[in-house]
């Protein structure tokens, strides 16, 4: 401890910038791992506590070691970079993980040369796919039936038209959709999501961001809540009787 202290002084000032923490090597190790953290990397098989103590020449408590391991575990969930492999090799093996980035598909063209794009949507138990064609008149066909016949209720038709209305392209696209499962409202919601996803290909990135902020591109996570034992429904309790 005395030798350690003596060697860390240089012209009256401590040598290491973390000297005043008391555990300069351990904390500088944590600091360096944080550096790599910010540069996106990963690690795997860990050194044991005794191996680490041997490497650092400092005594560690179990808490310190577990924190070090937790930090490396956290690193593991991130994608890896080739530059830092050498550094992490000292402590662990590398594991490569691909980062999933949402990419907008480009437009496709059919036999007549008309541009079209496909999208899929879900809502509760409904599953829908929509194909949006360019140069259209605003016709929407659902399962081979015209939208006006398939959705007699105004609310459902409003849901279908909302993406076009938001982008200002109401009479410009033709849509052909297929939908299954669920009820009338959830089918309408599923088709709305599908059309919004398909429209991303026709539109600029800024407008895609506007759509995302409007909530057109988010899958609605609400599903029917399960019924619990001792209750009549998910929330409804049995009638309370005083006696």
């Amino acid at each position: 401890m005395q030798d350690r202290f003596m060697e860390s002084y240089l012209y009256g000032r401590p040598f290491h910038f973390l000297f005043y923490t008391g555990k300069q090597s351990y904390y500088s190790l944590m600091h360096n791992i944080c550096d790599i953290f910010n540069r996106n990397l990963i690690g795997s098989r860990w050194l044991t506590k005794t191996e680490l103590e041997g490497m650092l020449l400092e005594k560690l408590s179990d808490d310190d070691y577990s924190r070090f391991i937790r930090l490396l575990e956290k690193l593991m969930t991130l994608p890896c970079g080739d530059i830092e492999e050498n550094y992490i090799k000292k402590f662990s093996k590398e594991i490569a993980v691909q980062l999933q980035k949402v990419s907008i598909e480009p437009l496709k063209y059919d036999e007549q040369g008309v541009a079209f794009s496909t999208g899929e949507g879900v809502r509760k138990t409904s599953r829908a796919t929509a194909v949006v064609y360019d140069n259209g008149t605003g016709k929407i066909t659902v399962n081979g039936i015209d939208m006006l016949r398939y959705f007699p209720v105004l609310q459902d038709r409003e849901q279908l038209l909302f993406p076009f209305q938001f982008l200002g392209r109401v009479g410009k696209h033709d849509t052909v959709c297929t939908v299954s499962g669920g009820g009338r409202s959830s089918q309408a919601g599923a088709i709305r999501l599908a059309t919004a996803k398909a429209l991303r290909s026709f539109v600029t990135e800024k407008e895609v961001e506007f759509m995302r902020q409007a909530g057109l591109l988010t899958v609605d996570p609400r599903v029917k809540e399960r019924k619990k034992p001792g209750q009549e429904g998910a929330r409804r309790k049995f009638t309370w009787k005083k006696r």
Partner: protein
Amino acid sequence: MRGRRGRAAALPGSSRGRGGSGRFRSSSSSSGTEMAVPRILRAGERVGPCRAARSRARPARPAALQRPPHPEDKLLTEPLRHPDFFNVKELFSLKDLFDARVHLGHKKGCRHQFMEPYIFGCRLDQDIIDLDQTMQHLQLALNFTAHIAYRKGIILFVSRNRQFCHLVETTARECGEYAHTRYWQGGLLTNAHIQFGPGIRLPDLLIFLSSLNNVFEPHVAIRDAAKMNIPTVGVVDTNCNPCLITYPIPGNDDSPTAMELYCKLFKMTIIRAKNKRKQTEVFQDLQRLAPPWGPPAQQGALEGANAQ
């Protein structure tokens, strides 16, 4: 490692708590008679063969006023004559503070009683800090830090905010100073001689980039620094206690933009002060070595100095 490194540059008349090791004690005993006279500090005395010989040859000083003028005194006293020697005012402006969201405080319920003088007002329950006062306090604090860095003092950055721990440590490393953003062991300052070893040199300035610890209580180091007569500079938010901090800076300590601004400002002042110190020393050396007559011989002397 001779000479006393005083850190109370801007606090005339204040004394260091304990003498420390034996070699420090000898010089502090001679200063005991000078307590009535404002101390002219011997801080930052360079160690080298010529200087060590000169300091050994120098007699004990009875009183500061009777001392013959020493070139190093000019090095140390010259900055103290100006209110803003290092021109720290130009490093920041009110717009910079506003853009970095320094004026945003916490909600009204979290307000600390002693922060009320620094608060401009309250909008929708959120306190707004008075940036005019922040400007003044920031200028004083940066000026003080610069003086400490000029006199080769040890500066310790303290922040227990986990979000910015890495940023603070990087800042400290880049300006050649020290950082402590981890769990603070109780006797670090007050029990240093047992924890580290005898003859340790404690920090001369503590900079708090966040004066609360993880449980939202005042950081133990504020109280310990006050006990050990170490001056503190601290960023105080609307839920902090500014009492024991020597140079409080009322401002936001939770936004990343605000923290990056503070780190940038402290780093720039410290580096500027250190460069100024090096420049002045080199300039003095050249002046000392240059003979009083004509340019040609001066050039020869300068070449000689450069060769050294």
